[in-house]
Structure formats: C-alpha cells, structure tokens
C-alpha cells in the first residue's frame, strides 16, 4: 500500500536477494524466486540503456549481424529500454501464456521505469514469467512455455 516511489526506492537491493538467474526449461536461462513473493509485490525493474525508439532498427540489425540475442522492452512510442549489452537479471524473464508476473511502465519522479510485479503468490524456486504481448505477425515464433493454455506462438 505504499506509494510507488517508496516501493521503488529499495528495489535494486531487494531484487538481488529475491530473484536469481538459472537454467530454464522454457528457454535457455530464466529468472527464479529465491524466496516466496507475495501477490502484487514489486519484484524487479527491467533495467538497461534507455534509448530513443528511432535507434532500435539500427541496433537490432547490428545485434543480428553479430548473432547477439536482442533484449529490448518498449517504454512508450518514444523510448525503449535496451538490455542487450547493459542490463540486469530481468532480461532473462521468459514469456509464458500463463504468467505469474506482469509488467507496468511507472512514472517515478518524472522518469519512466519498466517494473515487474507478481500476479499471484509465487513460491520459492518457481520461474518468473510474464506475457510478452508480442504483436500479431505472419512469421511465427513458436512458444515453448509448456502451459496448459499455451497459445502456441509468441506472436
């Protein structure tokens, strides 16, 4: 029930103790709980380099040319967080069609942050996931979340 700014203030320290990166059955590595997390709890910020949206095309092409996996999260129509070369553990959160977390763009003291919150109580050892909400596209990316209500494709 505390204001967002207060909840955010301690997040960088607390998130290091509450989550960690491990091997995932969904894809490569994932983010896992190191302790029980309550429903609605602010878990971690999706941190990285804040860039203008007009820079994403060129960056994506560069990463593709070097076979570097691209980790970008759109804040709004103008700004994007690029966690490919600079970021935190949140970049490893995998997609699930039945997620246990959700993302929100929150304005704190005039700056926008992408924050991950728990949708429900998450037990120690569970992998954290959220719905990537990729736009519909003709070329499909298969989903490997393995959930009962899996939509088969990320997009």
């Amino acid at each position, binding site marked *: 029930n505390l204001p967002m700014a207060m909840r955010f203030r301690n997040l960088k320290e607390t998130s290091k103790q509450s989550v960690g990166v491990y091997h995932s059955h969904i894809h490569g590595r994932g983010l896992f709980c190191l302790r029980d997390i309550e429903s609605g709890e602010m878990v971690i910020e999706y941190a990285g380099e804040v860039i*203008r*949206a*007009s820079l994403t095309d060129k960056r994506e092409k560069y990463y593709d040319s070097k076979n570097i996996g691209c980790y970008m999260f759109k804040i709004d129509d*103008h700004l994007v967080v690029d966690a490919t070369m600079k970021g935190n553990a949140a970049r490893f959160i995998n997609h699930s069609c039945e997620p246990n977390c959700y993302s929100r763009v929150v304005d704190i003291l005039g700056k926008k942050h992408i924050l991950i919150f728990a949708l429900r109580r998450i037990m120690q050892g569970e992998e954290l996931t959220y719905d990537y909400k990729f736009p519909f596209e003709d070329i499909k990316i298969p989903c490997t979340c393995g959930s009962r209500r899996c939509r088969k494709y990320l997009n």
Partner: protein
Amino acid sequence: TVLLALHDRAPQLRVSEDRLAVTGEKGYCMVRATHCVSRGTWYWEATIEEMPEGSATRIGWGQEYANLQAPLGYDKFGYSWRSRKGTRFHESRGKHFSSSYGEGDTLGFLITLPDS
C-alpha cells in the same frame, strides 16, 4: 508566412516566440516549416546563432515522411548539409560537400523541382 511548425516537429525542441528560431539538445531531431513546395525553384536561408562545443546541425530539404526523431538525411525523405566537416547526407550516407560551417554563418538552400 513561412514559420517553424509547432505541430510538425520533435516535441523536445524549443521553438522561439516568433517561430523563426529553434534550439535543441542531446540527440539529433527535426523541425519542419509550416509550408512545403512541390514544383518550381525555391530558396531559403538560416543563420547559426549559437553552436556550443560538441553540437552540430543538419539542415536542408525534407518530405512529410521524414522521421522527426532522427537527423534530416537519415532516410530517403530528406537531404541535409552538416555543420561538422560540411558533409551532405541522404539515406544515412555522408559524402564530402564543403568545408564545415558554424556559429555566425548563414546557409542557403536551393531546390529545383520539375514544373509539372
């Protein structure tokens, strides 16, 4: 009267009260004029009033679809002349054009379009 447009620009740019001057900061972005041309020969001029160390301009002629959150000359919708080294740009390709320009210089831009 041809002025700098208030609704056809990157919002982070600061346009003067008389709408004849613009100031920017950080990364390249664009402002266009209120009026465009489609045929014939046209010319306009701009003066660089201030150009602090590390800053630069790319000025020229652009079309409606040119990306406002990029420098003029980034895509196929614009042609620009850069202050640094006097390079000309189109589709992000820079080519040598002139020596550099800077504070105190007045620049002229001529365009010749088919009459039909």
